[in-house]
């Protein structure tokens, strides 16, 4: 990661709490998410996977066409203790502002409407969460 340009994004404020987020592009078999530009996706260190996408986004870019074998679909557990099966696919993720291209597992589950990046996503990065200026930066 040395020698790379610092890339920063303002915190997202989807509801009552501002949260750190990245601008990224997810590449699936049928296209990219978003189609143009980048999409801000919240960082959630409570999620220990790579990337969680809503069912609609998962299907829209054709992640059902790069899915892992069913025996590798994990079980997910919510903070309230519900356990259920996730679908899991392989995808490429670009972070244009940081010049990064990552490959990892994208998860979804029935009824999911959230998009999140998790611990596996940030494990190779040096991150700065700048609280006073409400920005998340890859350094």
């Amino acid at each position, binding site marked *: 990661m040395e020698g790379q340009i610092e890339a920063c994004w303002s915190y997202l404020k989807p509801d009552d709490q501002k949260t750190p987020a990245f601008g990224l592009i997810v*590449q*699936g*078999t*049928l296209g990219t998410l978003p189609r143009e530009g980048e999409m801000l996706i*919240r960082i*959630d*260190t*409570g*999620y*220990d*996977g790579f990337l*969680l996408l809503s069912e609609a986004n998962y299907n829209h870019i*054709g992640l*059902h*066409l*790069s*899915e*892992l*074998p*069913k*025996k*590798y*679909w*994990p*079980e*997910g*557990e*919510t*903070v*309230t203790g*519900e*356990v*259920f*099966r*996730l*679908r*899991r*696919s*392989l*995808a*490429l993720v670009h972070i244009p502002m940081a010049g990064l291209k990552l*490959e990892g*597992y994208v*998860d979804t*589950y*029935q*009824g*999911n409407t*959230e998009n*999140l990046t*998790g611990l596996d996503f940030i494990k190779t990065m040096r991150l700065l969460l700048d609280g006073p200026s409400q920005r998340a930066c890859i350094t």
Partner: protein
Amino acid sequence: MSFKSWRSELIKGSIPKEIEEIFRRRAMEKYGYSKGAVSKALEAAIKLWLRHEYEVTEEEKLNNKAFEEILNELEAKFPGMHAVIAKGQLVGVHKSLEEALKTNIKEESHRIVFKIGEKPKPWVRLGWRAKLKPVGAT
């Protein structure tokens, strides 16, 4: 999977007494001491159970069967490469995921892509944002 409950049906079955007692008590604690609390809890439990496993299509079953059949051979011959399975057969083995994703789509509605030899962890903690829709109060 979506659920529209415009009419109710009666389900009959038997469970051990101790589970029935805990279930009834917990149902009332959650949904109130009113008529319908047990039904609401039963509906929530069944929805959760249905959600636990995905229903897979015939094409998905075919691709997964092919995966099971060729896995040992792929692990011996192409460790670390990306395999693509469609229509119940291996259609390519590629050095990178990028190449594997470029495999031509014909009329498939499902494909399997995996890195040979890589076994992801079987369990994920979902965090505080991910949740299931509540069943609602009685």
